[in-house]
């Protein structure tokens, strides 16, 4: 009996201890250890591509530009009223605009969001070699993902250096301060990142974009054709943009060529009135569809119902009329011009960028002075992106710059070919006339025309106007602010004003004592 009892006891105890391994196996509802290339791809989508809610940094700089004006005196809707007061500090280029906006909040997204996604790209780059690869297909996919991570990292650093550093073509970029470069995901807590010079930043960006594009070009696969992911064409387009900012005209042209050879199409506005220029499904022009915020509080880009208090400026609207020959109609804008009965007015055309708001603005809701109707820019519901139109503009500008320096009329003609091609797709074919070289007195007049066309085409998206103003000589801009009684105050951003460089937010400086603020 005793034996039996001891046997039972031993059996019991061994059961108790044997169930160990299975019992203690890791368990979690939502956590996983990434181990395959497919996991890395999902992690890239989650951590290196930004989401709609983080997309504010892609067009937040519109409020600083001359495309924007204040046209609300007082709004009964408290949300709009608060927005007007909150964004006033940005509108008047206050050099503490991010620190405290009268309500105790601080906006650090322009700094924090790109670095957050840089971390995501770095994590992919640091860990992708540890993943299990599934044959040749897996290798191709892996290299493509690596390329995507490089290009994204380059893009984020590009945004950062253009927000917080002087333009590349101003002064000495090897001396001007840029932003800290982050090229690995690890964090050491005893060292603080320092600001690299503008030249060093561009060098890193160039390296990342070149390497990323090379990898993607050599490893094309199915997944890379998704419109929401980048591929080698997007990499080349970004290189074209970067070289334009660096004023390397030849390379701008080369990279624009490499994209336009593969995808030269532009959307013909007259034939596609119901298609938005940007959407998540893409169209013949879109290279990459990027998420964008659709909140009422994005400058310029708002729905026709909610009126963001800073909307399209008269200056921008008038630019659309400037280069029109008699009888030409620009389908990118709806304007009410009593002198021209051919103007279609608002007819629900989706493809138009600049549209009038639907409600008249008298009465209880708004008290406004001056502008009766307001204009908003509407390019697509929650989507923005990169498209071939930009490359035509890049190439045209580069050709004109070369023409100015070298005098070859073939360059000028090549530029006009690009600009005419773009305009043919944007203007109503009835009345469209091509521009000729003889229309311009010299290369500078041609350049001004190109810059105006660029402003019209790329208004309200991708921080283009602010970045272009910076590299086009930082001209003087005036903003008129309407306070709650309608009193107008004028604020001027001088030519080459130090405030063309955004101030680093105080909360960011507090965390890093080695970070120096820009000089004002």
């Amino acid at each position, binding site marked *: 009996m005793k034996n039996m*009892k*001891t046997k039972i*006891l031993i059996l*019991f105890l061994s059961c*108790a*201890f044997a169930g160990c391994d299975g*019992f*203690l*196996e*890791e*368990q*979690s*509802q*939502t*956590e*996983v*250890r*990434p181990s395959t290339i497919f996991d890395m791809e*999902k*992690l890239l*989508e*989650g*951590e290196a591509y930004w*989401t*709609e809610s983080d997309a504010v940094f892609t067009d937040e700089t519109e409020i600083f530009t001359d495309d924007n004006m204040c046209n609300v005196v007082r709004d009964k809707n408290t949300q709009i009223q608060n927005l007007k007061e909150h964004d006033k500090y940005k509108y008047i280029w206050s050099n*503490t605009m991010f620190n*405290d906006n*009268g309500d*105790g909040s601080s906006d650090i997204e322009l*700094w*924090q969001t790109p*670095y957050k*996604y*840089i*971390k*995501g790209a*770095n*994590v992919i780059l640091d860990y992708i070699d540890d993943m299990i690869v599934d044959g040749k297909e897996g290798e191709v996919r892996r290299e493509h993902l690596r390329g995507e991570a490089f290009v994204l990292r380059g893009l984020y650093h590009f945004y950062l250096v253009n927000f917080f550093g002087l333009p590349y073509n101003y002064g000495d970029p090897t001396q001007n301060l840029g932003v*800290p470069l*982050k090229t690995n*995901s*690890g964090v050491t*807590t005893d060292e603080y*990142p320092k600001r690299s010079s503008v030249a060093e930043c561009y060098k890193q960006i160039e390296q990342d974009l070149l390497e990323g594009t090379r990898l993607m070009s050599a490893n094309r696969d199915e997944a890379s054709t998704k419109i*929401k992911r980048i591929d080698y064409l997007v990499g080349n387009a970004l290189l074209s943009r970067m070289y334009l900012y660096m004023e390397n005209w030849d390379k701008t042209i080369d990279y624009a060529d490499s994209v336009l050879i593969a995808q030269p199409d532009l959307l013909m506005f007259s034939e596609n009135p119901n298609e938005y220029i940007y959407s998540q499904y893409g169209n013949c022009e879109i290279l990459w569809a990027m*998420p964008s915020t*659709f909140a009422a509080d994005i400058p310029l880009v708002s*729905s*026709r*119902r909610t009126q963001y208090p800073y909307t399209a400026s008269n200056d921008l609207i008038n630019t659309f009329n400037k280069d029109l020959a008699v009888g030409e109609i620009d389908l990118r804008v709806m304007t009410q011009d009593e002198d021209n009965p051919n103007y279609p007015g608002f007819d629900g055309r*989706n493809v138009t960028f600049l549209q009038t708001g639907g409600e008249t603005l008298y009465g209880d809701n708004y008290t406004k002075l001056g502008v009766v109707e307001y204009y908003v820019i509407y390019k697509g519901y929650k989507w923005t992106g990169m498209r071939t139109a930009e490359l035509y503009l890049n190439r045209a500008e580069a050709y004109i710059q070369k023409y100015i320096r070298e005098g070859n009329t073939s360059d000028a003609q090549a530029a006009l070919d690009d600009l005419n091609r773009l305009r043919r797709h944007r203007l109503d074919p009835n009345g469209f006339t091509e521009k000729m070289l003889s229309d311009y007195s010299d290369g500078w007049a041609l350049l001004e025309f190109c810059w105006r066309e660029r402003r019209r085409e790329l208004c309200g998206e991708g921080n283009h106007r602010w970045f272009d103003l910076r590299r086009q000589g930082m001209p003087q801009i005036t903003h008129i602010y309407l306070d709650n009684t309608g009193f107008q105050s004028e604020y001027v951003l001088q030519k080459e004003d130090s405030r063309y460089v955004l101030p680093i937010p*105080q909360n*960011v*400086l*507090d*965390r*890093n*004592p080695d*970070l120096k*603020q820009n000089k004002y």
Partner: protein
Amino acid sequence: MSTNLSGSVGKTKGFVGTDPFGYASKMNRAIPAYNEDGSRFFYKSADNGYLFNVENELEHSGTENTVSTLNANVNLRWRITDDISFNTSVSYSASETNGSSWYSERTNYIAQKRGYDYGAFEAGSKEFENSKLPNGGEYNSSHNSATSWNWRNSLDWIKVLNGVHSFSVMLGQEMSSTQNNGYKLQSYGYIPDKGKIFVNLPAYTQHNAVDPPVNDMYRTTPTLTESESNTLSYYLTLSYMYDNRYAFNASVRGDGNNRFGQDKKERFLPVWACGFRWNLGYEPWLQGQNILSDMSVRVSYGYQGNVAENVSPDLIATIVEDKENYDYKLALKDLPAPDLKWEKTSNLNVGIDWSFFSNKISGSFEWYWKKTTDLVTELKVPYEHGVDSRPVNGGKMTNTGWDANVGFTPVRTKNFVLSMGLTFSRVNNKLKSTIEPNKTWKEATTGNLNKDGYPVTSFWAFKFTGLNPEHGGPEFDTEGIETEEGLKDATVYMAYAGKMEPDFTTGLTLSIRYKTFSLSSGLYLSLGNQQFMAPPMDSFSSIPSEYENMSTEWLDRWRKPGDEKYTNVPSLPDKRTNALKWQAPSTEQMYPYAMYAYSDIRVVDAWYIRCGSISCSYTMPEKFLPNGLQNMSFSFSLSNPFQIRSKDFKGRDPEVALGGQPLQRAISLGVSLSF
């Protein structure tokens, strides 16, 4: 063998959203609750501009929770031989919670979601057509079930040799598992008083728009949670006692669990301890006298390691929803921390228990010392790293303190017992950290800023110098703020205000029993800490709204030039003059009224003497009981009868001045009868 089975079911109903007590203390008394005709008075809420009445809000919203639990356990003890015995015990418990909270369409909360006040617009109007929630309110339901079981086995061996040496060894193992399952859903369109039905919502709002946005309240999805956590532990205890006088023991224990992402090498980290005890009461030279009836001395030392819970040495990702692509994607849980070491704690306890005069006076004293090295703290890192903070091994912390208690039973007879007890304790905390945190003024006022040479929980306050004679705004002495050191360390220009944790606490209990009547009470004293009073106003930059209630200290405020000689209460904040943001040299902006709320005149000494309760009870002696009644007793108790606090509060209720609710006083009376 013994078994036990028990269960319980409980239901609670309460309020949701507006907290009645918070509302009562913050609301302006001049706002009526009823109109002259008796109907409820509604006013436009300052938060969202829609009509609000607190009774209406409470009547049309609420929560309800039902909790049922079941517990069972079985214990078995088997004596294998004379010396060895085996114990096993299994317990199981299951609990289920069903909860719901709801807001009907008449509440202000729903008015905000609907976009207009209840009844303001009819069906067919533009506002109705464009509303996301034209009819109905909100209903939140949740359901949680948790089951857990626990199985413990132990083997004991006890042997006594020669009547003097006694050995005992205990080996044990424990397994436990807890599973949790939860379900939560938020639904709209709920009408509680019409059959509890859910009405439909429009799928799109603004249907005239070219691209009408989808109503985000139209489709709501539940949140499911599921988790299982298992632990396996082992322990071993060895002890030896000589002649009931000298005892030695040692024990070791290890635990492993199935937490995701842990470093497998760090499982089952042992915790070990050893100790010694000397029972002087049994020493021959102490026998036969009445003065020192008993005494024992004990010493123990232990060591343990602690792994940080939320950190993993490997790359861990979580699965999240990808709204735009109708798919899922992975998000990083956190960057890996492979170099993080686990915290190590060693502690030493020394204690003495004693009693004098046949246990008329007894007491104990214990001194402890605890040292933790490689403390894991979250350090805020620059935003350039893409993360907010990183866990680091941040230094050492040493805690020492002592605890003493004394009890007196001066009288103990059959009919009368009088006993008193006194406990004291004092804590001493020193922190030595190798991490330099950011010493901004905000950190310095919270008690979380650890500066070398200052005790843990030290805090600093601005030096208030008086009021401005022109506009009555508060003024401060911030000498040192423009220096290089002052830019990095706010304590350079702030005054040391004390520490937030008390130095010394003591409690006194008293009980008297005379025949069947007993009375007991307790007093508690805490000394040595300071606190900020709650800020005197909600907004630091503008005059409070007409809906807000304000503290009576504002009656003494500065009103005209010259008042600054008589009062320290500043004038009401005015954006243009006294509440103007002050540009500090470091481009950090400070609001004068925020600085006032955290200045040295708002610091109070937080000592108190509090009486916890007074209670008495009386049991009717048997001879007075009528027939049929077996027992009858009465009890009375009064909780929080009084409290004495420092004069710094100037007559205000200290709990409210510190930002809390006043202490509840409760009187209860009870009768118990048994037949």
